[in-house]
């Protein structure tokens, strides 16, 4: 009994905050909570959920490693009579009791708007992406869609930089190939922070502006103190985690819960 949570990773501050918020809330409300980390491996997530089923949890909170790929895990849980809440990443092809998450596409559009403003509608832009994660793909799609409003802005390069080290190398090399870049959009804080380092080490601080996504503490501090980091799309993992536990408790108490609980991302551009 209690809540079982399957989170997609533990090596990202965003998920650590979700995790911490969930544990704090569960503690505060006196509900048992167990957390498994899928380490971005779908079959581990499936195994984690199967183990939750054997343990007999009442509600499964899951942040899918993959929207479609989580289908069997969620269906298994539902078949075992467990209610499912998805957090951060939606599930496709199966109905869940509730979805709590950031609208990544909208966040991408807002990043584009910020970029357009900062560059005054003119310039060359590079993107650091992570093509195998859907929430990131949605951000990039939203960003590209948003930039369509600014015909003077051209996307000249897009490279993958999954870890911070990879993002640093990708940003360095893109700047080397296109020294006239004036903006970089990083799919997450890691990518943006790495891009800012690359900009500085290439001596292009005056010319290039970097926008990130996630808005964890480190990135917000960077926006405050580092002129290269002009802004970051801010998600609210603490709200997500708390809301997930509250929703789960509501379900256990037999209350009705909304099917979607979107959390609109903010734009952080400094204190």
């Amino acid at each position, binding site marked *: 009994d209690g809540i079982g949570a399957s989170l997609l990773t*533990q090596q990202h501050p965003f998920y650590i905050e979700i995790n911490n918020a969930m544990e704090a809330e569960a503690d505060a409300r006196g509900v048992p909570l*167990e*957390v*498994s*980390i899928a*380490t*971005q*491996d*779908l*079959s581990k997530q*499936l*195994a*984690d959920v*199967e*183990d939750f089923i*054997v*343990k*007999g949890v009442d509600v499964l909170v899951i942040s899918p490693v*993959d929207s*479609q*790929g989580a*289908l*069997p895990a969620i269906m298994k849980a539902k078949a075992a009579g467990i209610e499912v809440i998805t957090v951060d990443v939606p599930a496709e*092809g199966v109905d869940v009791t509730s979805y709590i998450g950031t609208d990544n596409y909208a966040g991408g559009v807002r990043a584009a708007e910020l970029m357009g403003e900062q560059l005054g509608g003119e310039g060359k832009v590079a993107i650091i992406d992570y*093509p*195998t994660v*859907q929430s990131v*793909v949605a951000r990039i799609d939203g960003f590209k869609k948003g930039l369509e409003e600014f015909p003077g802005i051209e996307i000249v390069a897009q490279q993958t930089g999954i870890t911070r080290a990879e993002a640093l190398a990708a940003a360095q090399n893109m700047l080397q190939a296109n020294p006239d870049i004036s903006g970089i959009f990083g799919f997450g804080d890691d990518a943006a922070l790495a891009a800012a380092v690359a900009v500085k080490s290439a001596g292009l601080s005056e010319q290039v502006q970097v926008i990130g996504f996630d808005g964890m503490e480190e990135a917000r501090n960077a926006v405050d103190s580092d002129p290269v980091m002009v802004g970051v799309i801010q998600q609210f993992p603490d709200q997500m985690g708390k809301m997930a536990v509250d929703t789960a408790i509501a379900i256990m108490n037999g209350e009705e819960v909304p099917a979607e609980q979107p959390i609109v991302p903010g734009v952080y551009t400094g204190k």
Partner: protein
Amino acid sequence: MTDTTSTQPQGHSYVRAMIRQYAGIVLSLVALCVIFSLTNDRFLSLANFTNIFQQVAVIAIAAFGMTWVILLGEIDLSIGSIIAVAGMVGAQVIGLGWGFVPALVLTLASGAIMGLFNGTMTAKLMLPSFIVTVATMSIYRGFVSLPTGGAPAMNMDPTWIAIGANSFLGLPIIIWIVLALFLVNHVALAHTTFGRKAYLTGGNREAALYSGINVDGMKIKIFMISGVMAAVSGILLSSRLYSAQTNAGMSYELDAIAAAVLGGTSLAGGVGTMVGTLIGALIIGVLNNGMNMLSVPYFYQLIVKGLVILVAVWLDVRSKQRQG
């Protein structure tokens, strides 16, 4: 029936020999089971053992293939990528509407071809298999993403899904597949001339050559076996997940190697059995499952898993040394 593997003394007492050979790892496995069932009363249930077997199936089957490769003194680091490619091939063929059987055949064929490439590079160009398969690990991983640009591909073919979801005679089909493949691999290794040739080649390449064994041919065939086993793993994985993931199977090669080595397969070649590998895979499965059941935090799981591998291999090595 007497056993033919080389590490076993042959004699009247087959059971005693078995016990002696596998004492170290069986001890580890039993110890883990006892610890977990004492700390969690749901661990010791049929449902949970079905769970463990299902979870371990992908690793176990890949490890059967890996056992052949290691036995030959080679290594195959590309199986994680082959698992992903196989799932993707299946999903794409199903997507074309060709149906289950062609999808199955082409998936297995893709595994065989990737293995053929590994084997040919190793045998004919005389490159070390470690570096060949590090390279093909990257190449095949690149291949997976070509059809979808990195996105996963759904595969909801009912027969395909049934493999991972349905049961037969009360046991999940996946478990039947694991047991069937275990039997085939065990018999092929322990009781056929092909298996014997693998032991000879792995034990002393030059001696095998002088005995008239086509050593290059053996290498190529065995990398193909490894490729096909990985493809079967890929089928099971994508069946369980209803989809082919582009990052499927990542770093599974290390689990497969760990399973084989835990089971007493020597990385130097020439020594190893399928029975050992199956037990090794079960140790890894029980460990993952048991720690999940105990809600051990992820980082501690990493530490405990590493320590258990160390202890189990050490027990195995020591129990074999004692017997001289």
